[in-house]
């Protein structure tokens, strides 16, 4: 009986999705966005691969950076500016029309009704992926290279990004009086996370840790071929919390005071779960060029260091040396060393007028010894750490490095597919289904 009711509710949500203009507009615009990103990326990749570009550029060229990330970047835009409206519409239309009063009385719990909405939203997001998947097929048809683990990791990132947007949209629609207010809440959240990203850049500590879970930052790690389990868990928890929040606020038979108290309890539980999830250190470097890892011999050598390493950095957040150091060294060290403590000691934001006598220095402390270094080059830093720990510097000569996959392909048929056939397909499908 329960599964029978759930299937009926699922069918209702599916029909409501098909009747939603927001969904069809998402499909229509995402085709244009993906098409533009894909054709631009492929043309640029061809230029860099040798058709007119500097001779050194083709070395190390990876389709993940050159084609997949820019093409699928369209979905970051869609998840930020289009998909939340599909989610908002699924809740606010029933609130505004009064259908919610009937829905709440129908068989099944409020949780099962929201689960039906969640599943249909997931379906909507996956359907919106069709242009992106077509782009991957086109790329392969041009002879382009695809490395499955890093590609699937990128898709996982976009799946989580969509779930987060869906959870946020549903929660905003449940709390707000109407769709317009819900849209403002959603956009305010997005702008807030952008501000957090900006403020936290290179700052370290709790703020930077928090900022690493904003939608943009979380997606960035997937775009770099890194699967961080903490990001997966945190985004999944926050997305689910959005649906739980919606369940609290759609329960209109409860007083506002009760709903506020339960919301507070939910926030506390979510915060505890997020903090626990954020402490998961496990990660996998799924990039083909191992950009998130040191060479294999260095990783083996680093695993031999058992003492805690403390790094004190006298570089301000906006100093490009700190950005290099973060990307090329610290990110990899965090994955390689279990006991690593990093302190950001600069007191100014830009470093331009810093009178601190140690500015520019990086201190390494291990086993009671300390060395000061200014270089942010990977090999120099690693050698300092090996010297401090007494571990022999490994022989890196056998490391072959990443060959790169240059290809000077032109985006044939892409414009016709994304700018003509896809919109035609979307409009024709909408026209046929609205007659049902």
């Amino acid at each position, binding site marked *: 009986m329960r599964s*029978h*009711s759930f299937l*009926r*509710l699922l*069918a*209702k949500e599916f*029909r*409501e999705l098909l*009747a*939603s203009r927001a969904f069809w507009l998402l499909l229509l615009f995402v085709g244009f966005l993906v098409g533009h990103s894909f054709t631009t990326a492929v043309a640029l990749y061809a230029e860099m691969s040798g058709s007119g570009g500097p001779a050194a550029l083709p070395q190390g060229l990876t389709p993940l950076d050159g084609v997949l990330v820019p093409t699928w970047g369209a979905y970051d835009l869609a998840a930020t500016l289009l998909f939340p409206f599909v989610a908002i519409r699924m809740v606010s*239309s*029933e609130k505004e*029309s*009064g*259908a919610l*009063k*009937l829905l*709440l*009385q*129908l*068989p099944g719990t409020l949780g099962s009704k929201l689960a039906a909405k969640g599943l249909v939203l997931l379906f909507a997001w996956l359907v919106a992926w069709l242009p992106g998947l077509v782009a991957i097929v086109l790329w392969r048809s041009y002879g382009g290279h695809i490395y499955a683990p890093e590609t699937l990791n990128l898709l996982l990132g976009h799946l989580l990004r969509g779930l987060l947007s869906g959870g946020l949209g549903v929660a905003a629609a449940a709390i707000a009086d109407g769709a317009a207010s819900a849209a403002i809440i959603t956009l305010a959240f997005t702008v807030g996370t952008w501000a957090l990203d900006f403020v936290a850049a290179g700052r370290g500590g709790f703020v930077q840790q928090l900022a690493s879970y904003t939608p943009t930052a979380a997606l960035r790690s997937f775009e770099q071929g890194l699967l961080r389990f903490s990001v997966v868990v945190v985004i999944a928890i926050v997305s689910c919390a959005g649906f739980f929040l919606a369940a609290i606020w759609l329960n*209109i*038979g*409860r*007083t506002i005071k*009760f709903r506020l108290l339960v919301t507070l309890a939910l926030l506390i539980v979510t915060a505890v779960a997020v903090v626990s999830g954020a402490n998961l250190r496990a990660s996998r470097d799924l990039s083909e060029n191992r950009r998130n890892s040191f060479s294999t011999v260095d990783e083996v050598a680093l695993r031999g260091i058992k003492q805690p390493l403390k790094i004190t950095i006298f570089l301000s957040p906006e100093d490009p040396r700190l950005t290099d150091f973060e990307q090329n060294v610290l990110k990899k060290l965090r994955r390689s060393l279990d006991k690593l403590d990093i302190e950001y000691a600069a007191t100014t934001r830009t470093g331009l007028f810093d009178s601190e006598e140690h500015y520019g220095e990086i201190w390494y402390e291990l086993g009671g010894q300390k060395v000061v270094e200014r270089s942010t080059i990977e090999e120099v830093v690693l050698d300092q750490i090996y010297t401090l720990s007494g571990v022999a510097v490994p022989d890196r000569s056998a490391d072959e490095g990443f060959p790169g996959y240059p290809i000077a392909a032109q985006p044939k048929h892409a414009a016709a597919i994304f700018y003509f056939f896809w919109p035609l397909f979307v409009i024709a499908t909408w026209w046929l289904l609205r007659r049902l």
Partner: protein
Amino acid sequence: MLSVEQLTKTFGSRRVLADVSFTIGAGEVLGLIGPNGAGKTTVLECLAGLLPTNSGAFTYNGSPLSSRRRKEALFYVPDGILPWAPQTVKWVLTFFERLYSQAPEKLAALVGPLRLEEIGRSRVATLSKGERKRVLLALGLLTSQPLLLLDEPFDGLDLRQTRDVMTLLRSERAAGRTLFVSIHQLNDAAKVCDRLVLLNAGQRVAEGTLAELQAQANLKDGGLEEIFLALT
């Protein structure tokens, strides 16, 4: 079947229901009558669990009415809503028919009296007030709970439609279902209800059959309008 005791509801500092008590007997049509703003819809929504109450108790067949039992015991059809506006009438009705596992004859029996055939292919969003009311009544009658709450079931209907709906409600009662209907048109209430609860300014003024109300108001042959004016 169901008793409401000391029901009180405030919106901010405005008290819209004050210690309202009454009972609904099994198999009867109980009318909740009163002028606009008397608190009729608020009573129904509190009873349906769609509005929180400040105080009061609901007892169903001798036990407190929990959220779970409420869903099994009663279904409330609100007034003036536009459910699933982009869908066709036929689809919305079939959705309820299948959700409540009703036999196809049940919906077929409603199509004639509620004149649903002519609007079956129309989108809910395009319906007139009367058409929308007929669809909402059909949805309520397709549910299977023993107690059906209807908010203004005759509002927006013409004379002939009102008569047909009354017949339909009487046959529903004859089939063993209990009906609790809020009506502000007193003539209609007198025709369809077995007993009546009079509500005015959030307070229960009287409760009983027409004869009992006439006795309370000392109006031997008075109609509901005279009784209401005499008691308020």
